[in-house]
């Protein structure tokens, strides 16, 4: 198992382990700092599962519906998406540039009894190494990268022919400024101020163009809308703020 080996490499210092444990606890505490992400997680997981199952002809009701699929989660953080997908049978690689995040994710996966291949890496490094995946996930990442076009193209290289790439991000509209920046950061304090820079948000047509440049064509898109009364996220047609896009690479 890759996990044990890389774990040994990064945890030489007990103080470090304690720090990563605290970080893992923070990532995985559904009532703590990451609560907004935990509330958001089911709706995006459901979308990801349903698109993958529809594409590969799997039964989304089956508890091993992702069996045998190799999935890369770019910008995996503490592993909030990697673990559920691994539990559904996928063979998951999670990468994040933050070493602390990866250490925390590893610790948690071990406690959960899941074998997930976590690496401190950027997408380009895996692309350079010629890695290939059945599903590539870039969730809430493109709005943070330096060059969207380049990032998407390098990711696209890793998508096998006939395979999928799913991107979740924030649209650049007045509404997203009001909700994602003013609302989420300044009013609700869901996210630390400065988490997002509105000018870096990506409009769907820009994303579509970047995907097309990488040889991927969009097959599905959906908006995700927050209902403050039910404190619940739902899929919907409104792509003005949060949205997800699924693209495939032709053979």
């Amino acid at each position, binding site marked *: 198992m890759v996990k044990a080996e890389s774990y040994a490499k990064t945890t030489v210092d007990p103080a470090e382990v304690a720090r990563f444990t605290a970080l893992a606890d923070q990532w995985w505490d559904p009532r703590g700092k990451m609560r907004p992400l935990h509330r958001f*997680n089911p709706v995006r997981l459901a979308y990801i599962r349903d698109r993958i199952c529809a594409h590969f002809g799997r039964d989304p009701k*089956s*508890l091993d519906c992702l069996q045998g699929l190799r999935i890369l989660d770019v910008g995996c953080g503490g592993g909030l998406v990697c673990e559920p997908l691994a539990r559904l049978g996928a063979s998951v690689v999670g990468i994040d540039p933050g070493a602390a995040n990866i250490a925390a994710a590893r610790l948690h996966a071990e406690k959960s009894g899941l074998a997930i291949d976590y690496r401190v890496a950027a997408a380009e490094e895996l692309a350079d190494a010629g890695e290939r995946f059945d599903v590539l996930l870039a969730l809430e990442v493109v709005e943070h990268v330096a060059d969207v076009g380049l990032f998407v193209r390098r990711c696209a290289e890793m998508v096998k022919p006939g395979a999928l790439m799913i991107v979740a991000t924030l649209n650049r509209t007045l509404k997203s400024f009001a909700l994602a920046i003013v609302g989420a950061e300044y009013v609700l304090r869901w996210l630390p101020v400065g988490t997002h820079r509105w000018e870096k948000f990506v409009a769907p047509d820009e994303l579509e163009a970047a995907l097309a440049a990488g040889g991927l064509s969009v097959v599905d898109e959906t908006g995700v809308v927050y209902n403050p009364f039910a404190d619940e996220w739902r899929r919907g047609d409104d792509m003005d703020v949060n949205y997800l896009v699924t693209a495939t690479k032709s053979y």
Partner: protein
Amino acid sequence: MSERAEVLIAGGGVAGLALASALGRALGPSFAIAISDPALASPPPADDRVSAIAAGARRLLRSVGAWQRLNEAQPIREMVITDSWLENVVRPEFLSFEGEIAEGEPFAHLVENRALNRALREVAAEAGVRLLATTVEEFEIEREAIEGRLSDGTRVRARLLVAADGARSKLRGQAGIATVSWSYGQLGMVATIAHEREHQGRAEEHFLPGGPFAILPLVGKRCSIVWTEPEAEAERLLRLPAAAFHDELERRFGLKLGEIEVVSKPSAHRIEFSMARRFVADRLALLGDAAHVVHPIAGQGLNLGLRDAAALAECITDAARLGLDPGAPDVLERYERWRRFDTLTMGIATDGLNRLFSNRSDALRFVRDVGLGIVDRLPALKDFFVGEAAGLTGEVPKLLKGEAL
């Protein structure tokens, strides 16, 4: 010894078994479910009690495969409610329901609790649920799991512990969940009556000053009665010689069905109201009577438990199919939000009914009779009450709509 399960259910009553069966069928053998109750060591004990299974609950029982195993289920074809005093010769009917909520679907059936329990045990076992004949004594919460300690020394580590251990739930106490409860000072006497003539599937509820007197048709020329009186009066009645008891019974039962005979020794049950302040805690969910005990005036106790089971099964299934933790706070909060309103409405409604009817006030009698008369004359309102009694209003869990999870 330590075992693992995704969900550990404490209490093998109807609600707990229904939840186990629904989960077993929806999620398959890779999702380990254990249900623990010392009563599972032997066949369900003799029990006179019958339950009116409302349409929604019946759909759940059918979708888990238990309904098909019941040999005897008496449909309620008609329900009549009267408001009267014992000395009234004629009891005016203020409210009557034709008993179908949809074509060919009676709004309720009467089923013997024992037969229902037996059928549910069979389907649970077939769905791969582990039946453990022991008690969950206590639990310990960890961050990622909850460990149940069983009376035989076994420990079961689970993602979620469901306390379906009845009105006096020990696990609810350990979780520190308080209840709001009171006693009605009434006893419900339950007995099976044989009678001369066919009952035609007609259920009756007579609101007498001492408390409601219900006649519930069973298969054949038999009925189950639930006869509610203030405690002292009920105790006096139960001490009467058989012939005198028979006379008292006949005064209430009436003569419409001809000669009657008590075929089982009446049993007495204390009538209470109890509502847990919360339905969930860390990695723990309350189910059925552990969460709420309502006045049996509308026959809703068991149905509420089955509605809990339908909602919780759906919350757990949705989470498990996303690879998420079925014991996570979000999952449990969804269950609590889903059930609280319905349960509270029913609790208040049944409490209110009992307070409204169990008295000899002329003024209240006038108010309630006008009220019931209005309900009887307004089809839409009546449909609402029938729908509510059938468990089919609000956002309805899939299993209660007869849909698969």
